């Protein structure tokens, strides 16, 4: 049991924290911004995995080309071919393979439906054809190699999004890696993804847990090495 003095000290410490202007800005951020930042973070780890595998990564802007400044990520899912903003993607090479990493773009599944994929790895020739024709990339025919569903949870994780992701990948072709990535751990989700053929879970992936980052990057790296 805490004394009245201790409780007052605790309450004052919490109020000091929450009254800081920087804390106020972070607390008022809308959750969409946190979600998009988390997707971009997973994208940046995929870039790191390409480098670990011995490949090269070049950040591109769809309008400005190499090394865009600023780097523009999508604030909402959209078309890979959109030139409305200088949207960024990563052009990668690994041995003979040429591919691209994208954040928040739409793919057409085998059913014909459009799917929003948080982080994806797409064949470079196909992506160039999509940009050239202002069309939509296909999620089938080995055009799409890896997909990641990224979730920045701000409440206790449920399995709903996991179920949705399982449905989404069933409409894609054969994928080398399909991962469900979340900022927090969850026994419920781990259990849900433990069934064979379900996506690989990367739960609790965040910058404060370097072991989780290493596990994720190593997994992607190994899959890239097997492929290339």
């Amino acid at each position, binding site marked *: 049991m805490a004394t009245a003095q201790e409780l007052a000290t605790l309450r004052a*410490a919490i109020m000091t924290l929450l009254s800081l202007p920087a804390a106020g800005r972070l607390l008022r951020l809308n959750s969409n911004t946190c979600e998009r930042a988390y997707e971009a*973070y997973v994208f940046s780890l995929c870039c790191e995995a390409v480098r670990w595998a011995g490949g090269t990564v070049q*950040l591109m802007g769809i309008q400005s080309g190499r090394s865009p400044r600023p780097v523009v990520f999508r604030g909402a899912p959209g078309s890979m071919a959109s030139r409305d903003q200088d949207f960024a993607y990563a052009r990668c090479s690994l041995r003979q393979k040429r591919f691209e990493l994208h954040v928040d773009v739409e793919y057409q599944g085998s059913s014909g439906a459009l799917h929003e994929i948080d982080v994806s790895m797409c064949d470079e020739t196909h992506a160039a054809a999509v940009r050239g024709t202002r069309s939509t990339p296909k999620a089938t025919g080995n055009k799409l190699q890896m997909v990641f569903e990224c979730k920045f949870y701000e409440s206790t994780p449920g399995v709903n999004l996991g179920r949705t992701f399982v449905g989404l990948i069933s409409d894609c072709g054969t994928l080398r890696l399909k991962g469900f990535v979340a900022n927090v751990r969850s026994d419920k989700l781990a259990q849900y993804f433990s069934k064979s053929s379900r996506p690989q879970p990367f739960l609790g992936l965040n910058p404060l847990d*370097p072991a989780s980052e290493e596990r994720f990057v190593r997994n992607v790296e190994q899959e890239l090495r097997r492929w290339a």
Partner: protein
Amino acid sequence: MPDAMNLLSDEAGTILGSLLEHLSRHEAREVIDGIDESRRLGIEERMGKEEVGSRNVGLVRRRPPTDLEMLRMAFERLHQRLIVVPALARSLQRYLGAREMVWRVDREFVLEDRLPALEAKIDDLLPDGIENVLMAYEQVRELIPDIVPPGKAERA
């Protein structure tokens, strides 16, 4: 360093009440929604076989969180916002080798009044004075380390 304290459930309830009041005053609507959602989802726990005997029923049940558990969940949400979000921004800058980053939308598909919810810049995630937030957070954690998640990277 102050001694760590052990809160009783009613003390945790009082602290949680003032925390939520403060968040509400500062219009941290989505943080409060996350905390409310966690309360609604409750705590799942496994039942022992002896509790159900030979009946063929599911062995997971849900119960409402205690005040202590709610306070822990509230600090988990604060941890994500105040510590993890700025860390994401730093990692992005480090891994991509770029300092300036923005989030923009295809304007053809979005109404003008929706833009503030969809567009952002890296400074929003890494505001000036962020070091003070980390220091103040650590001070709270020293008082209730069992409830407040660590603010620094955990090395194995």
